């Protein structure tokens, strides 16, 4: 009896903690945010957030949710629990992707039409600087050690290394055709960059700024030109990296030590962005044209469920 109640108590506590996790997905064509319970695999609700929402991020304390509403030309700040709009940030024109520094007090926005990166002081809602970069900046990220701001320009095929102290470009790495996304490893030693048109993943050493490895993907039954890598993330222990392969409808699992492609997982159509669960036990993917997200269990490396969320799911982030 005692054993049973203990088991129940344990199960209950597990459920209650697990249920706290929410996955937020921006829906580009619905002007809305989808809120998903990833444990139940259920869409909880959608809330209207503004025109053409794309990039999304949580503040480090998980209290604020930032959403780039591209056609409103702003980045909106929401309460991450009530989804009440708290304010707007001066992002510049047509914001799509953005990144926060580890402290969460600065935001860096790619302004694709103007070939600029806008640096914003979040607290004072002020633009600190606009940095001229290559044509059509897209992927943007800050190294976990806060030394580097990375801006990737799609048409210039360049990774710009921007010093976060001076906000100036100090180095550039030429990469494969149409680079899209960039992610640092947790130790900040490597930058992983996807090139959509070349179909490659490049691993760049942060110290030398040189490409140390080019990874190609091969999916049986799919021609090479359909393999268009977009979103990329690496787990905190640098064991495995994951790359969304776009219209190949797969997520590739890469051994971060041997750089071998270990597996490709079938997800929804035109998969482009990825996010870990806070405990990094699950991976969430946005599938642009099948209007759903896929939930991947990373222990078994299997897709456990897909959840319909709305039209054109774009960005994804998980809140504990």
């Amino acid at each position: 009896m005692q054993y049973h109640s203990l088991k129940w108590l344990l199960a209950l506590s597990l459920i209650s903690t697990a249920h706290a996790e929410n996955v937020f997905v921006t829906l580009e064509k619905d002007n809305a945010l989808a809120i998903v319970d990833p444990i139940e695999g259920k869409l909880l609700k959608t809330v209207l957030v503004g025109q053409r929402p794309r990039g999304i991020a949580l503040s480090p304390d998980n209290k604020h949710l930032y959403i780039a509403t591209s056609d409103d030309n702003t980045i909106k700040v929401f309460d991450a629990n009530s989804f009440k709009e708290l304010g707007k940030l001066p992002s510049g024109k047509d914001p799509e992707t953005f990144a926060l520094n580890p402290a969460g007090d600065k935001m860096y926005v790619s302004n694709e039409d103007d070939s600029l990166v806008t640096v914003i002081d979040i607290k004072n809602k002020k633009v600190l600087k606009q940095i001229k970069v290559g044509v059509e900046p897209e992927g943007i990220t800050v190294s976990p050690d806060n030394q580097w701001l990375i801006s990737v320009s799609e048409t210039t095929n360049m990774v710009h290394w921007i010093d976060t102290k001076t906000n100036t470009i100090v180095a550039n790495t030429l990469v494969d055709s149409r680079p899209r996304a960039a992610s640092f490893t947790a130790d900040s030693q490597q930058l992983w960059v996807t090139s959509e048109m070349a179909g490659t993943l490049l691993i760049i050493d942060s110290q030398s700024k040189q490409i140390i490895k080019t990874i190609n993907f091969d999916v049986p039954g799919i021609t090479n030109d359909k393999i268009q890598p977009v979103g990329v993330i690496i787990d905190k222990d640098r064991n495995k990296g994951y790359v969304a392969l776009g219209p190949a409808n797969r997520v590739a699992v890469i051994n971060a030590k041997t750089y071998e492609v270990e597996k490709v997982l079938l997800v929804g159509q035109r998969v482009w962005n990825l996010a870990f669960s806070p405990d990094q036990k699950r991976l969430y993917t946005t599938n642009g044209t099948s209007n759903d997200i896929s939930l991947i269990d990373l222990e078994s490396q299997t897709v456990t469920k897909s959840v319909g969320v709305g039209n054109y799911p774009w960005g994804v982030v998980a809140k504990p």
Partner: protein
Amino acid sequence: MNSRLISMQTIQKNVIPLKLLAIKLYCVQAMRLVKHPTLAQGSYILITFVFYAVTTLAFNLNDVQAATKPTIKASTTQTINAAAKQSINIAYLTQEQNPPASLSNLDPFIKEKGGIGAELGINDNNTTGEFTGQQFTLKRFIVPIDGNVNETFTKEISSQFKYLIVNLPAAQLKPLADLTIAKDLLLFDVGTSDDSLRNEECQRHVLHLLPSRAMRADALAQYMMKKRWTQWFLVIGPNPEDKLYAEAIKRAAKRFNMKIIAEKTWEHTYDARRTAQSDVAVFSQTEDPYDVLVVADEQGQFGEYLDYRTWIPRPVIGTQGLIAKPWHKTHEQWGAVQIQHRFLEKAGRWMEEQDYSAYLAVRAIGEAATRTQSNELSKLKDYIFSDSFTLNGYTGTPLSFRAWDGQLRQPILLAAPRSLVAVAPIDGFLHPKTELDTLGYDQPESHCQWNK
């Protein structure tokens, strides 16, 4: 792994002191063995990858605390100076055109389609060039209506340029490309869709950026097949180009097993107000029923009259109605919105297909120059024809050139006046190498023999 990295050597060169400027140059030279599935046997041939150079330039605009970062230590001064830059000079040649007879005032006559696209490409190339130490220039030559194109080429272009973008009709491109001095250049044809220039009359020094008529016709045929519009009524205009377009349609019909149940040449008036209503109704009556009316009227002299006026209600497709283009104003996927905006801002009008092709031509030169870190014609040409060459055309698939006829491999947009209907290759049309090669003359079908 389809393209496997066999060996990768990283050569770290020493810092090159160039007075105040100091660039740290790293070269990654990779020899790749690329597996290339051939169509006939599905066997693999080995192609040695030409040369792959990745340069990391460290430069600095302001004073940076260089001491803290060893990689940027060498560069404490201004950006790369002009003297250190490698120049790649591109010429653009076209001739003024007489405004054609127009159906209506809806679409204003555009004097020169193409040049602004090339300029946009130069801007993009130079943004990359700023970071890689290369400078691209474009000189536009617009020959007056009564001028002589070959004379301009011989006197002003041939000795000074290696890369020439030609926006001329087939009748003028051919004699120009035939000149002996033209063979020392690389020509980028952005003005013709002629299949003959890509087949029997192909030349090794001419690349074709616009899709051929065969590619356009195949794109439409794939769509009609998907819709099961298998019975076609073909209407042909009076001009020689219309006949060529009709030939491409007939080839596509045969290729995709469609049936042309009737074929008629338009011989009526070109004035909508007076006679279209009655003319078309009579003209579009055929003995056998048809699913779709396919029109070949490249100049747009009567094609627009057909829709809504046919004897039986049938869609119009071809040069009017649903059209096949490499670029269209309705296209906004795959980052196209950005380039549509950039062009609109620069030109004050929508991007036409010649502009798009000229943009791609300049970008192809830029991409090859950046990757090879060279301005030498032979190196750039080799790279353009290699398997590693990929170009982004904002159409969702990497673009490249067909090694057997110099045609740019590209998707075709199927567009209605205000909506993008489909993008060919249509899903389900498969190919062992790339589905893009389901459009137009594939390698086994090509009549192009480079070394004739």
